[in-house]
């Protein structure tokens, strides 16, 4: 296995800016990114990655090969929460267990984007299907998570607000702003193809890496501010926050290998399975499962799993994939 991948990854601009952000938060510097800018950066990333994925998806055609990683991703995002919920129910109430299950079943778009930039640096190809997989993996985990909580009796009266029915639940899950923009951009990318992409590429593609640096600086600040809140989680959840990505990744690498994916797509599927949501899920959970304590699931995914994945996880998964695929 190629350990230099990990050290090499730590010295790239995006990761270094993430560390700078964490450092600023820990040292209590008054460096901050205004919240509207944070949102704008995330809109930009979803817009870019969605359109780019759509263009590539369309140019590749919609065969069964294209659907394989998609189906694998959706299956993972629906099944992982079941296992997580069963595991965490031993220590946590149903609302919290379900929220964490949804969080870790879903995906992190920023981790995905960082992995894409990692692949790009190493000139490893990946396909637009993976963006489609990402877009479709956000919602099932939310649905499964909330339904698990409901089955355990959480929020069943749901008098106030009326976020009770499966229908309104699916609304939350699919009409979440991030999911909607991502899927919309994907469809638009597929409709307009290469010509359309070329006209927006000087905005959506060329500055992407640089914007990612600023965004990760901000993510570092956000994560750093929540490191303190991890104390509330206790050792078991902290262990989970590092082990879950590893276990999910191991399963994903196996699946990718079985499905015969290329190295690029294999890494992306792995990263999707290993990552935890802090965009779509927290928003949906706050609406549908307000009983869950946000100071548990949010700091875990933001301040533990996300930094782990972008710093050590991505190159580690790549090294494992390289070794496995080469051995084959």
């Amino acid at each position, binding site marked *: 296995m190629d350990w230099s991948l990990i050290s090499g990854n730590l010295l790239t601009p995006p990761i270094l800016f993430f560390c700078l952000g964490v450092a600023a938060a820990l040292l209590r510097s008054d460096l*901050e*990114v205004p*919240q509207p800018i*944070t*949102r704008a950066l*995330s809109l930009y990333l979803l817009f870019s990655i969605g359109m780019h994925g759509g263009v590539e998806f369309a140019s590749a055609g919609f065969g069964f090969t294209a659907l394989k990683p998609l189906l694998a991703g959706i299956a993972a995002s629906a099944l992982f929460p079941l296992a997580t919920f069963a595991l965490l129910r031993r220590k946590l109430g149903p609302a919290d267990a379900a929220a964490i299950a949804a969080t870790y079943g879903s995906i992190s778009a920023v981790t995905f984007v960082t992995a894409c930039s990692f692949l790009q640096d190493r000139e490893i190809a990946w396909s637009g299907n993976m963006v489609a997989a990402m877009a479709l993996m956000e919602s099932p985990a939310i649905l499964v998570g909330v339904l698990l909580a409901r089955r355990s009796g959480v*929020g069943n009266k749901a*008098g*106030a*607000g009326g976020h009770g029915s499966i229908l309104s639940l699916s609304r939350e899950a699919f009409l979440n*702003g*991030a999911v909607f923009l991502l899927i919309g951009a994907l469809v638009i990318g597929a409709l307009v193809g290469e010509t359309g992409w070329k006209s927006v590429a000087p905005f959506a593609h060329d500055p992407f890496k640089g914007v990612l640096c600023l965004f990760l600086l901000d993510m570092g*600040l*956000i994560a750093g*501010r*929540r490191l303190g*809140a991890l104390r*509330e989680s206790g050792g078991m959840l902290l262990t989970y926050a590092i082990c879950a990505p590893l276990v999910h990744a191991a399963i994903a690498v196996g699946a990718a290998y079985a499905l015969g994916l290329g190295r690029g797509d294999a890494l992306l599927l792995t990263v999707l399975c290993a990552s935890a949501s*802090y*965009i*779509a899920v*927290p*928003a949906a959970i*706050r*609406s549908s499962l*307000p*009983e869950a*304590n*946000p*100071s548990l699931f*949010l700091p875990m995914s*933001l301040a533990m799993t996300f930094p782990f994945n972008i710093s050590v996880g991505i190159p580690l998964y790549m090294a494992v994939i390289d070794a496995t695929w080469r051995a084959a």
Partner: protein
Amino acid sequence: MIPVKRIEIVVDAPHSESITRLLGSHGLEGWTLLRGASGMGQRGRQHDDDITGVSSNHLIVTTCTPEKLALLLEDLRAMLARYGGMCLVSDAHWLRH
């Protein structure tokens, strides 16, 4: 000037629409909403820094005739019990124009 009850509500951003809908259902036709509030409460710190607004609060100010107050507060209490948040009520005078 008309005596009214001034009601000030702070909730997580994703819940403010439920609150304003509730106000509408009680026949209150006026409110003002301020976004981007951070805060501290029983459920910990709201940093107002994240991507989705989950860690932001919204502050809603509305008024209500003293007669309508009791019913409104009953529903508000139920909502806040589920969502968390804060509600302050005070006396004020409305400048009729």
